[in-house]
């Protein structure tokens, strides 16, 4: 139960800790990946990992730290993605400006959601957050002149990114996306760390633990909840914009669907909410899993072990269907995590380790 006071003080008091050094080393290693790895598929996987981490970290601010379970984060993701694409296709505005505009739109949506939903507690907040996301999805379906409706928007080509006439990159490979993704991961982590080490972080957590107690200790609940949501919405919209320019296509179900909202929550729940490492761990579990299923890697791995023969009916069934099973696996994961590891994989692992240590002592 007890947390080592010394360690706690060190973490709170100064930023230069073993953790910081390790993170910087990890960042250096990640930054050098594209110069070592040339396989586009590996880079693609890494980019998906980054995207998932950004989404998870962003949700974590409102869901994990402030305890307000938004199951409507697709609204902000979609706001970023659609704003970027609409500006790019209709007005030829470069996506980096589009992303800024998307942040603005997401902020406005977030404040509307906040003003409606934060009067509500518990299940009502969850329901309202879903309703707002659904309204956006249906609007994107119906506002055909702007959004192209169900057909979605396909980005024909991306303008090269240049500073003062020098072309930095023309986005012909995955490398620039890799660095953008990495940069956004760093941004969200830095924002989260900064929040943790400020009054905001304390107030967010106090609200999560007990709203009435927090209120009576001088915390303006609606102000701080809206701050958390606004911050989270803006970062989530960045993830959406990044997704849009990377994939080059948006349509209502893929960027505004309930699935996206659930997936965002899932990243944190699986890793463990309210920690910096949670979304990273969650992404490391979810992304390889769903990619492995999608690309039939897992099916071929099963065949290779010889448990099931590829030509048998079961093998055929697996080959045909495992690719579509990632949502099923998500469902099973949620159920397993909620029932058996309510603190996430990370919390579960910690418990196992401490049990073992306890056993030895």
């Amino acid at each position: 139960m007890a947390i080592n006071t010394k360690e706690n003080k060190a973490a709170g008091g100064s930023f230069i800790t073993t953790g910081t050094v390790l993170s910087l080393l990890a960042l250096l290693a990640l930054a050098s990946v594209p110069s070592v790895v040339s396989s586009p598929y590996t880079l693609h996987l890494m980019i998906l990992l980054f995207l998932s981490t950004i989404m998870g970290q962003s949700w974590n601010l409102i869901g994990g730290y402030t305890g307000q379970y938004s199951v409507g984060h697709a609204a902000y993701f979609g706001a970023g993605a659609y704003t970027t694409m609409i500006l790019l296709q209709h007005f030829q505005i470069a996506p980096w400006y589009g992303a800024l505009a998307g942040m603005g739109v997401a902020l406005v949506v977030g404040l509307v959601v906040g003003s409606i939903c934060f009067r509500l507690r518990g299940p009502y907040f969850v329901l309202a957050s879903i309703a707002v996301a659904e309204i956006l999805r249906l609007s994107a379906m119906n506002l055909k002149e702007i959004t192209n409706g169900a057909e979605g928007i396909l980005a024909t080509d991306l303008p090269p990114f240049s500073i003062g006439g020098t072309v930095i990159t023309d986005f012909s490979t995955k490398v620039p996306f890799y660095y953008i993704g990495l940069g956004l991961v760093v941004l969200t982590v830095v924002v989260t760390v900064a929040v943790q080490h400020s009054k905001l972080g304390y107030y967010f957590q106090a609200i999560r633990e007990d709203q009435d107690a927090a209120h009576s200790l001088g915390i303006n609940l609606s102000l701080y909840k809206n701050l958390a949501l606004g911050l989270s919405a803006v970062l989530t919209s960045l993830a959406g914009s990044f997704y849009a320019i990377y994939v080059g296509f948006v349509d209502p179900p893929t960027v505004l669907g309930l699935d996206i909202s659930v997936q965002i929550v899932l990243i944190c729940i699986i890793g463990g909410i309210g920690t910096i490492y949670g979304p990273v761990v969650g992404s490391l579990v979810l992304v390889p899993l769903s990619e492995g299923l999608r690309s039939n890697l897992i099916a071929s791995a099963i065949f290779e072990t010889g448990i099931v023969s590829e030509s048998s009916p079961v093998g055929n069934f697996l080959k045909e269907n495992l690719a579509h099973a990632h949502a099923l696996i998500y469902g099973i994961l949620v159920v397993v995590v909620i029932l058996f590891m309510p603190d996430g994989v990370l919390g579960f692992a910690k418990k196992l380790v401490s049990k073992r240590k306890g056993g030895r002592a």
Partner: protein
Amino acid sequence: MLVFSQSLISGLLIGGVYALIGIGLTIIFGVMRIINFAHGDIMMIGMYLTYNLFTLAGIDPFVSVAITIPIMFLFGALLQKVFINRVLNALPQNQILLTIGLGLIMSNTMMLIFTSDYQILTTSYSSSSFRLFHISISQPLAISFVITAGITALLYWFFMKTDTGQAIRATAQDRDAAQLMGINVKRMSIIAFGLGSSLAGTAGALISPTYYIFPQIGSTFTLKAFVITVLGGMGSILGATLGGILIGVAESMGAVYISSGWKDVVVFVLFLLVLVFKPSGLLGKSRA
């Protein structure tokens, strides 16, 4: 005027089925304080059950309700016993996530078995209708409305007159007090979840002749079920009945007077307005 009464009638007819879905959700919420995010998916399973009974065994969808009701009851009771029971005292968000997870498992399992193609259950009367005072009434919707009314009446009788019904109501009112009075709260929870699932499944059976059947249809209905129960006040059966009919009418009016694409938006906006101005529901007393 004709257009108005026409859309009013079709709204009422579909509203009856919505009421069944809403009542199911509200019973589960009332007894366990759990919001069942898998509710629409349970309904979807009822649809597939009906579809297969029709295509494989040739049983008419309105007749197969008699089979669907007990099967879906058992299915719900099983869900409660195996999964829901374990999170009764957990954080509300974990309860919600668990039911979301169960819903994902249901819809994706059905997708693996039946693919994500849209299925159509065509009966001899699927598109037939009759006229009443110049208003055309869809025959399958009319039949389903009659069955819905019968089931609702039975439910009221069950809750008002039978011991088990009263025990469930007592549990919904105050779980601890009910336990002290010797009511087997665990058993009531299983019955409530069974009942709620059975109602959702029945609703699925009743709409299967008029709706496309596909694995992902559930989430739309889950959301509608929330809207209905919140409108009626969480936990109120009468409220859910009225809420269902109100949503049916709002949707059908929205489809006629705005556009069919925007009809769901009308429903959600209505939902948000109620949450903001009257969170205890249209019938509920406002809190102090």
